[in-house]
C-alpha cells in the first residue's frame, strides 16, 4: 500500500486506520484501513450487509467507531478506543493502539465543515422544502452571518451570494427547471442528483456517495458515471463511493476496496478486483444467484 502511495505521488485526503465498529456483540466493521488519494475516485464494494454504510457512518461522525483512527488532510479527525463495558466485550484487534491519545469524536456537522460531504443510501431530502431550498440550506453552514444579522436582513449580500450560487449549481445539474417543486415530487433519478447537488453546496473536498445509482436504470447509471467524473474535474473533488452496480464501479473507479462481513477481503485496481477469486466467491457468486 505504501508503494501505491509513493507511486501515485498524491496526498491522501482521507486515511482510515484500523477502524472497528462493534454494536454490542456484533462487529459491523472489522479493522478497516484504507487510503483515499486526492482527486481520485475510490469505491468501496461488498455484498449486502458487509458494513459499507457503517464504515461511511464512522467516517462522517454518525457513529463513534469502537476503535481506530481517521485522518483527514493529514490531521486526525476521528480517534477512538474501547471504553467502559466495551473494553471487555471488544472482539477486534489493535485495542491498545489508540489508548494513549484520547478520543476525538466530532459531530457530523463538524466533519462536514472540515470538507466532507455525503449522500444517503435511502434518500434523505428535506421533504417539505423546494428543490431550491434544499440546496440553499446546505449553504447555511459556510455563510458569514449570525442570527441577528440574518433576522434583520443585515446579511443581504451574503444571502444574495448564497442564492446566486445555489441557482448556478442547480443550472449545472439541470435542476433549474424544477427549482420550485417540492424535493420529494421529483423522479427518483433527479432526487439522487439533487442529493449530490446538495452535498456539493457545502463546498466539500471529499464527497462520499452511498449507492448513488441505486434504483437507476442502465441509461441513468451511465449518465451518473459521466456526471461523477465531471464534477470531480470541475470541483477538484475526491470521490469515495459505495455501489452495487459493478459496471459503474469498474468504469469510473481508480481503486477499489472490497469488504465482506466487515473485513477487507481485497483491494486493487478494477482489473485486479475482477479477477480476484475471493471477491468472486464472496460477491459475484452471490450475484449469479440473483
Amino acid at each position: 500500500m505504501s508503494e501505491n502511495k509513493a507511486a501515485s505521488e498524491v496526498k491522501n485526503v482521507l486515511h482510515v486506520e484500523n477502524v472497528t465498529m462493534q454494536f454490542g456483540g456484533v462487529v459491523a466493521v472489522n479493522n478497516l484501513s484504507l487510503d483515499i488519494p486526492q482527486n481520485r475516485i475510490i469505491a468501496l464494494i461488498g455484498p449486502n450487509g458487509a458494513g459499507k454504510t457503517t464504515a461511511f457512518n464512522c467516517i462522517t461522525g454518525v457513529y463513534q467507531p469502537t476503535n481506530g483512527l481517521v485522518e483527514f488532510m493529514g490531521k486526525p479527525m476521528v480517534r477512538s478506543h474501547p471504553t467502559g463495558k466495551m473494553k471487555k466485550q471488544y472482539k477486534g484487534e489493535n485495542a491498545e493502539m489508540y489508548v494513549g491519545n484520547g478520543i476525538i469524536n466530532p459531530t457530523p456537522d463538524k466533519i462536514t465543515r472540515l470538507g466532507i460531504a455525503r449522500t444517503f443510501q435511502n434518500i434523505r431530502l428535506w421533504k417539505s422544502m423546494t428543490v431550491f431550498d434544499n440546496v440553499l440550506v446546505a449553504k447555511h453552514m459556510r455563510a458569514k452571518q449570525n442570527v441577528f444579522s440574518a433576522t434583520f436582513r443585515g446579511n443581504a449580500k451574503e444571502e444574495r451570494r448564497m442564492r446566486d450560487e445555489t441557482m448556478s449549481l442547480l443550472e449545472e445539474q439541470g435542476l433549474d427547471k424544477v427549482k420550485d417543486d417540492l424535493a420529494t415530487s421529483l423522479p427518483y433519478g433527479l432526487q439522487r442528483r439533487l442529493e449530490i447537488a446538495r452535498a456539493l453546496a457545502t463546498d466539500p473536498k471529499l464527497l462520499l456517495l452511498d449507492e448513488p445509482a441505486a434504483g437507476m436504470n442502465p441509461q441513468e447509471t451511465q449518465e451518473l458515471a459521466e456526471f461523477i467524473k465531471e464534477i470531480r474535474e470541475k470541483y477538484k473533488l475526491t470521490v469515495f463511493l459505495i455501489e452495487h452496480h459493478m459496471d459503474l464501479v469498474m468504469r469510473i473507479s481508480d481503486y477499489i476496496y472490497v469488504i465482506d462481513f466487515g473485513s477487507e477481503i481485497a483491494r486493487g485496481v478494477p482489473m485486479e478486483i475482477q479477477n480476484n477469486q475471493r471477491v468472486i466467491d464472496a460477491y459475484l457468486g452471490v450475484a449469479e444467484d440473483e
Partner: protein
Amino acid sequence: MTKIEQKKSKKGTWIALCCIAALYVLLFLIDNVFPSTSFIVMLTPVLKKGAIYSLLCVSMNLLNGFTGLFSLGQAGFMLIGAYTYAIFTIPVAEHMSVYQYFDGGAIQFSIPEAIGSILGPTGGAFFGSIIAIILAGCVAAVFAALIGIPVLRLKSDYLAIATLGFVEIIRAVFQWNSLGVITNGSNQLRKYTAFSDMKLTIGGATLKFGTIFPFLIVMLCIIVIVLLINSSYGRAFKAIRDDEVAAEAMGISLFKHKMLSFVISCFFAGVGGALLAMFQTTIKAQSFTSAMTYEILLMVVIGGIGSVSGSCIAAFLYIACSEWWLRFLDSGKFLGLSVPFFRDGFRKVVFSVVIMIIVLFFSRGIMGDRELSFSGIAGGVKKLSGRLKKKDIEEKEDTGNE
C-alpha cells in the same frame, strides 16, 4: 420576478399597510371614542387576550412547528416572564402591601418609576413597561438556555416530558417561601403596571392606549419571528424538523440551532407571559399549569402546525369562542328557550369536542403549513382584525423572499 408581479406585490404592501393603519385607528377608537356598550365591553378583552395568545402560539409554533422540537414548557417560561415583569414594575410605595408577609420584599426598585423620574409618569409607564417586558423575555431566555443544555439532547416525547417536568419545578420554585422576598411565595403579585396605565393626559383630556399597546408589542414580536423563520436560520430550523440526520450531515449543528430556536421561542413566551400579567392585573405562580401549555398547543394545532398566520387566526378564534361567542352555552338559555343542559361548563365540553374533531379529522388545521397571502384576502374574505394584521406580516415575508 416580473414587473407585473412586482407591481402587484407593491400594491399588496400598500393595501396591507392601509389595513394596519385602519386597524390601529379602530383600536384607538375602541379605546377612546366608542361608548362602553356591552359589545365593546366583550370585545376589548377578547382583542387583548387574542393578541397575547397569538404571540404565545407563534412562539410555540416556532419551536414545535418549525424546528420540530416537541416542547411542553411554554407555561413555565410564561411564568418566568410574568413574574420578572411584575416584580420590576410594582411601585416602590406599594411593596409593603403586596409583600405583606415578607416585610416589603427585597427588591426596592421599580423600572417605570425610575424611567418616570426622567420622562414623567406617562413616559415612565410606557417605556418602563416596555423595558420590563424585554427584561422578562431575557430572563425567560436565560432560563431556557440553562434548561436547554441538558434537555435538548433528548428526542421527541422524552423532550416533551422533560420540559413538562421543568414547568412543575419552576412552579414549585416560584412558590417557595424562602424566595418569598422576591416572588412573594405562594401569594399573588399585584399593583404592577397594567394595560390600563397606558394613558396620556393632554390638557385635561385623557387618551387611553390599553388595547393598542398589546397589539403593538405583539405585532413587533411576530414580525421578528417571521423574519427569523424566513432567514437562513429559519430554513436551517425547517431542515432539522424534516430530517435531523440530513441536516447534521449538511453541516447544521443540531445543538446550536435547537438551542437558538428554544431560547428565541422562550424569549417570546416570556414576553407573552409579561403581557398576560399586564392583562390579568394579578398573577399567581399556581395558575401557570401545564394545562395552559396544552391550551396553547391546541390553538397551534387548530391554526396549523407550521403556519404563523394560522396560529394568529386560531388564537383569536379560540379566545373569542371561549370567552364570548360560546358563552350562551353556559347561560341555560338558547334563543330565549331554557335548555337545561346548557349550564356552567357546557361551553368547554362543546369546545373540546370541536377540538377533538379538528385534531382527528382536520389534522392540518385551518392553514396547514401555508400562510395567508394577500391574494387570498383580496379574493374576498375580510374577517377578523387579527387576520388583517397578519396580512402585513405576510407581505413583509414576501418582500423578504425576493
